[in-house]
């Protein structure tokens, strides 16, 4: 956490960091020893037009909040983003078409909404490095700086759990649906960023439950 604090400070010394980002940074970071039921998680998923952050763009964002160990469906949000370039062939993966995205909002607004929902909390992704790379790139462009928020990765958690049990990890075993099956979670059909975010949030709860009570934030980072 001190690392995030230091990098925030460095970015703030430059000018041009958006006010909305500054507001979030002004919040204190959750402590590693905080009990999980006292931590707010914002579980997110992003759909992109390519897997390469250099050339792809964010097409949609979805998220739900986890508070007190429960997912609150009231917090579920789904933002479509107006794209600069055509989605091209990637439409077959995320099923978002140019005409739908044209009705979406700006990336800046979507990021700002995500930031305000994440206030005081910890971000969660299934495969965080990819989503974070896209979001940081977008945030630097729209808000003058990277997100610099703590993030938990359910994929990395699952990998660690399996390695600890000395299980071999076959191809595809860490995909979201494969992970969910291991906890008896119902089949989930990838539709959009929001349903994937909800599916990831359920996986997070199952992973935490499997590791026993009185878990602390540091156990997940």
């Amino acid at each position, binding site marked *: 956490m001190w690392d995030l604090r230091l990098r925030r400070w460095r970015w703030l010394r430059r000018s041009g960091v958006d006010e909305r980002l500054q507001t979030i940074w002004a919040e204190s970071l959750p402590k590693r020893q905080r009990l999980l039921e006292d931590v707010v998680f914002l579980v997110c998923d992003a759909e992109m037009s390519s897997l390469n952050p250099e050339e792809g763009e964010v097409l949609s964002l979805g998220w739900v909040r986890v508070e007190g160990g*429960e997912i*609150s*469906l009231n*917090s579920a*949000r789904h933002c479509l983003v107006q794209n600069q370039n055509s989605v091209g062939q990637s439409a077959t993966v995320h099923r978002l078409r140019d005409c739908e995205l044209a009705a*979406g909002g700006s990336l800046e607004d979507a990021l700002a909404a995500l930031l305000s929902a994440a206030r005081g909390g910890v971000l969660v992704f299934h495969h965080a490095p990819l989503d974070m790379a896209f979001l940081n790139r977008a945030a630097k462009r729209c808000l003058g700086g990277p997100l610099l928020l703590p993030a938990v990765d359910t994929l990395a958690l699952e990998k660690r759990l399996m390695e600890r049990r000395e299980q071999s990890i076959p191809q595809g075993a860490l995909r979201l649906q494969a992970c969910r099956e291991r906890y*008896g979670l*119902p089949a989930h059909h990838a539709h959009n960023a929001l349903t994937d975010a*909800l599916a990831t949030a359920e996986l997070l709860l199952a992973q*935490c439950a499997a590791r026993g009570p009185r878990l602390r934030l540091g156990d997940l980072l």
Partner: protein
Amino acid sequence: MTDKALGEDPAELEDVVEFLRGSLPFNELDDENLADAVATLRVSYHRHGERFDVDSPRPGLRVLRSGAVDIRDQDNKLLDRLGEGESFHIGGLNAENGNVVATVIEDALVYRLPDEAYRELRGKHRGFDRYFSGQRSRRLRRAARFQPEPHALLAPVRSVMTRDLLTVPPQASVHQVAVAMAHRRVSSAFVVEDEALRGIITDRDLRTRVLAASLPLDTPVGEVMTPDPEAISADESLFTTTLRMTQRSYHHLPVLEEGRLAGVVTTSDLILARRDDPVYLVQHISRQHSVEGIRELVEGMANLMVHWVNGGMPAQQVSQLLTAISDAVATRLIGLAEEELGPAPVPWCWLSFGSQARSEQLLGADQDNGIVIDDRATDEDLAWFRELATRVCDGLALCGYKYCPGGIMATTDQWCQRLETWKETVRSWTRTPTNDAVMRVSIFFDIRGISGEATLADALQEEMLKQAGKNSIFLAALAASALGNKPPLGIFRRFVVDRDGEHRDSLDIKKRGVLPVTEIARLHALARGVVAVNTEERLNALGKGEFMTMVDSRNLMDALHFVQRVRMQHQCEQVLAGETPDNYINPRKLPRLAREQLRDAFTIIDEAQSAVRQTYRAGMG
């Protein structure tokens, strides 16, 4: 889209909406109300073993998205078992039934409709509200059904018999008897002479022995009655009565008080009273026309066992019933196979071995079966039996009787043979009692014909007794095996229990407590040529035949009953907890008294083993 609009309203979660639309009573709600309800939901994940009671935080209606939950009352009795799409409100249940607890028996993803939203919906929607008032009475009915009826099957037959009997003298004509039966609307009449029961005549007898045989109407009933019918004492339990009637296919049984005819009991008297009666179950198994139908009936067996044990039924009777159900399943599967394969080319008999043969089955029994075929069978004829065996064994497996890991099944060619081949196999075992042979004997020598020509099974058993009884070397080898499993008396000093694997703090009560008694009884029975295979019957016969003192025989029986009861209660608790029943008990968890009694039981078994050592292995070390 404006800044405000983005991220202001909850997004629609179609999957959740669709799921709730398919769950009672959310199906009552219109789209708008359903969307509102979804927005208030909280999702949580609960591990196996987690409990919800009236004091649990976060009240509300909990809908199971996946997993399973048991609802039990304060006596730990199962009121309901919920699965996907079903819901419970622990506060509401408690208001009605008192101290109800919900326990997660399979990891569960739960949608919670918080109390406030739940009450608001009930206030707004009559259909939604009505479901919960209806659900309560349904739950209460279920609770009543699960109430144990103490000793219902142990009540004397006197309590259900009909005293209003139609008695006729043997000289009465069949016409007179038929008229009297029609007038009294009864299906049987008793032929009595000098106050003694001489015979019984039923509707069916009149049809088959009089009408179909074209006998004149003035035939005396004494000539067509079933003479000297078997009768039962009015003090016998309903259980014994029922068992005897089903085993021998009697529909009417005269009941005696102090040796004199006092009443009659019919199958319908016994069956119609209770739906969860094993006899009802057995009857329905015999009427199924598919393996699937049988499987569905047998599925409830675990709950039935809990019911019987809670009802105070002794352990040995519970296992007799479970065995009777297994017999019925096998018999019906054979019937289904025969319908497709046509009749058998030669006489044959389906054999069961081990615990099923001894009528000592509990839950989770493996298959141990075989086929003995008349010696006239040609090699081509054997193909029919192989086909039959495959169908029956596969059917048994579908119904939950696991394939025998050692391959002791009719599908193995060696155990699907002509009588002469079987006899030769038996002779080879007794000639050279290798460890392997002794192990096989302990399974095969407990033998019972289930379906088909019983004389073939009897002939095989006779050969076994003949070979074993005269062979002291073989008996000594068998005795060594019977002494192999020592009762764990040590546990009462230091609680030494099985140290390996997942059952580290527990002892295998089947291996250490039940099997030693079974083996001792088998050994003595083989040595003395006792035909019975049921352990209790064997001990009884041994005691009466003075091969064993009456006291020793009784003591061993009591020890066995107690150990079996502990084992059965353990399995019931596992069934209630949603676990797979096994034989591992943790002596530390037993109540003090039960622990003392278990020690007594083990001491008795230990002494019986010493006697075996002296009788069969004297001088052999």
